[in-house]
């Protein structure tokens, strides 16, 4: 009777409270995460500018920032986790692919093939990544704090138009430059015969990776363009009504 009803509402209140606390913890963690990442990439940007101003050349710049870059780019793996447990509403696969391609570039191309570390193309994509990530993480941070300055929103949805193709060019040129060294050293490759009856040629693998940019890049680019139209176009409609 009365006690039965009370039990029901008490249980409901408890689950609602649990949900609210979980939501608050998630928001707190995400805010901390995005602030930390914004700070990390800012540190990277400052270090690069300082190096160039002091030395006047880009040679040796990569070695100088390598550890910081590897740390913060690898840390981004957490974002896949965020999607998986549902505190961020993006597809796990899309985030996974994006983070993995970055990790691949950093650990399996620039980190392991030292001869290409002074290439200009490396600087190109690192600079592009830095600008993109600072914009992206500060966008998320301000969003979570519910105070999004328009210029950050503008930057997030407009800079990619130029940054994205530039980044792709930097990455492709870098992989291309690494090919002769990979071929000569036979790194990361497995030859026949072996007891697993499989072979792997890193040289051809890199060529396939380069070719895969052809179908993948336009898809991601047009996805961002569509998102941009939806976010910025929606804004215009509201203003008209007022």
């Amino acid at each position, binding site marked *: 009777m009365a006690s039965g009803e009370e039990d029901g509402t008490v249980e409901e209140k408890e689950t609602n409270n649990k949900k609210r606390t979980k939501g608050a913890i998630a928001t707190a963690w995400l805010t901390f995460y995005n602030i930390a990442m914004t700070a990390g990439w800012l540190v990277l940007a400052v270090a690069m500018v300082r190096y160039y101003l002091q030395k006047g050349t880009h040679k040796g710049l990569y070695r100088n920032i390598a550890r910081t870059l590897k740390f913060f780019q690898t840390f981004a793996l957490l974002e896949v986790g965020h999607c998986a447990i549902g505190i961020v509403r993006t597809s796990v696969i899309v985030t996974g692919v994006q983070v993995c391609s970055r990790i691949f570039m950093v650990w399996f191309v620039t980190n392991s093939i030292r001869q290409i570390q002074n290439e200009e193309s490396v600087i190109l994509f690192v600079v592009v990544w830095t600008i993109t990530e600072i914009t992206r993480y500060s966008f998320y941070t301000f969003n979570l704090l519910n105070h999004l300055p328009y210029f950050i929103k503008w930057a997030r949805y407009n800079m990619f138009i130029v940054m994205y193709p530039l980044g792709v060019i930097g990455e492709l040129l870098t992989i291309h430059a690494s090919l002769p060294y990979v071929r000569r050293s036979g790194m990361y490759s497995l030859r026949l015969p072996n007891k*697993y009856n499989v072979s792997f040629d890193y040289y051809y693998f890199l060529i396939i990776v380069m070719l895969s940019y052809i179908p993948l890049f336009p898809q991601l680019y047009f996805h961002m363009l569509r998102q941009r139209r939806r976010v910025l176009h929606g804004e215009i409609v509201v203003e008209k009504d007022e």
Partner: protein
Amino acid sequence: TARKAVVFFEVEILDAKTKDKLCFLDKVGKILPSFSLYWYPARQSIRLDPKGKSLKDEDVLQHLPVGTTATFYFRDLGAQISWVTVFLTEYAGPLLIYLMFYFRVPFIYAPKYDFTTSKHWVVHLACMCHSFHYVKRLLETLFVHRFSHGTMPLRNIFKNCTYYWGFAAWMAYYINHPLYTPPTYGEQQIRLALTVFLFCQIGNFSIHIALRNLRPPGSKTRKIPYPTKNPFTWIFLLVSCPNYTYELGSWLGFTLMTQCLPVAAFTLVGFIQMTVWAKGKHRSYLKEFRDYPTLRSPILPFIL
């Protein structure tokens, strides 16, 4: 003499996305779905709710929850292709492709190996098993399976063929390679692998026959499958989709027989896909049948 009252319906069909009126029929006693040659029946999805499930061919207008004016929503499912066509194409590919590698057709391996055969007897055995497997699948598609859907979207044939043909080429390349390394534990390993493979092939076939016998020809009824006199079907006590269980077993046998990593990869990917399908089938059995046996798991007894 009493006169039978005939109920006539008014039917309007709207496009599910744009809500444009496509067709209006008044005084409908019987509705025939083919109102266009381009949108052949298999491609049409007619539903009561724009985002809802499609109505079936067998649904009768009078038995649907509509008033005397029925509004249906039409959705174009895209170009369709029959399941039989897809199955035959996706299975014929691996059969022929593997044989090309087995016979060492030119331009695959170094020219001095053209049209030679492997010196390892396990390679010949593997070719027989692989070919048997796909011939069995082709014959089952033609003579055993009863499909509930006639068609699937056209793009599926490209996706499926890439998967089957690609993996077949990848594994065939290594098994039939001049530098192929036979299994570490030799004859013992191969004999065990062959036993597992054959056992699971017979099992898989038994399940397909049992499922076929559940459904009378031309019907699309669904019933709970139960173990029959054939011992290979007793696994129904523990598993909802034993055809997938046996299929996994067959490929594990083939992996053991060839000791080839690409085969292991193919087995793993297939297992993941079949688990997804088995879980879906298991869930729909539970939803449809109140008395569905509780001991059964989707694909692996007690585990998955």
